[in-house]
């Protein structure tokens, strides 16, 4: 990242272009993970000049998930209600997510999008300490393709 810039996870109940994207929650901590399932595609006649047989592989499937922490609601009361529905709804509902570079005061200026997509929150934990606003942590399972940002 450029100096002073960080990555942040944004979630929304609607999709949209980067300019129109209205997010209702963002997380400060994230681990984004993509993994490919590999299958041995070697045949009995694959070998190098020295006679060694080397395994060859094919990608047969892709999976992804995002571990998030420090997720808080932002926006209006109506947005907070939507946010509540999302985080309460460890369900089959689709959540729209985006990972973007942020900067500026309190890192609330959203810059370029790294990637975005759809997902489902498979677990969510609220942490509400005395004198502090609640934050949420959990797992968002990526549902379908990951779109790379081009803004």
């Amino acid at each position, binding site marked *: 990242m450029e100096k002073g810039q960080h990555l942040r996870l944004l979630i929304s109940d609607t999709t949209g272009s980067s300019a129109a994207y209205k997010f209702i929650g963002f997380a400060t901590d994230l681990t984004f993970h993509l993994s490919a399932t590999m299958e041995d595609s070697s045949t009995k006649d694959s070998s190098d000049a020295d006679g060694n047989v080397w395994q060859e592989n094919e*990608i047969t499937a892709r999976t992804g998930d995002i571990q998030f922490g420090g997720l808080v609601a932002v926006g209006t009361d109506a947005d907070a209600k939507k946010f509540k529905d999302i985080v309460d709804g460890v369900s089959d509902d689709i959540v729209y997510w985006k990972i973007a570079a942020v900067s500026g005061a309190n890192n609330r200026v959203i810059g370029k999008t790294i990637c975005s997509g759809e997902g489902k929150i498979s677990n969510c934990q609220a942490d509400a300490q005395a004198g502090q606003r609640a934050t949420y942590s959990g797992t968002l399972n990526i549902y379908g393709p990951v779109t790379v940002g081009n803004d």
Partner: protein
Amino acid sequence: MALKKLLGSNFRVVEGSAVIAQATACQVTVSGNMESARTKDTPNGYDQEQMVSKQWSAQVTTIDASVTTLRKYITLFNTQNSGQSSSGYAGLAIGFDETSGTNNSDLEHSTDIEHSGVALLNDISLQANNRTTCQLQLQFTGNGPLA
């Protein structure tokens, strides 16, 4: 008597002809797929294994990956298709070598440790915590020989 030079201190993973930048850790693993060759008349009951094939993998952990770099590897992950046998896509040319200087970004490198091959990017992990720079980890699985 002078000590022999300890190799591997500037070990790095390269993609094509360019180093994978900002690496903090590099790992390359070569392993053999073994098959038991024990028969009923093998003495003493000890197994006798033979190597039927080999495979290799590489892992790089980097800090401060740029937006461009992150997009590049996610795009690669999305677009790489099946292996050589069906689609013609072999993978990304990567290798590992050792720099001759003290800086891992030196263009010149030692040929004491130098290998290369084609690999598929099979795992991306991006960690970005509050008040820290993001850390990117890439895992490659070798697709065919390591030369």
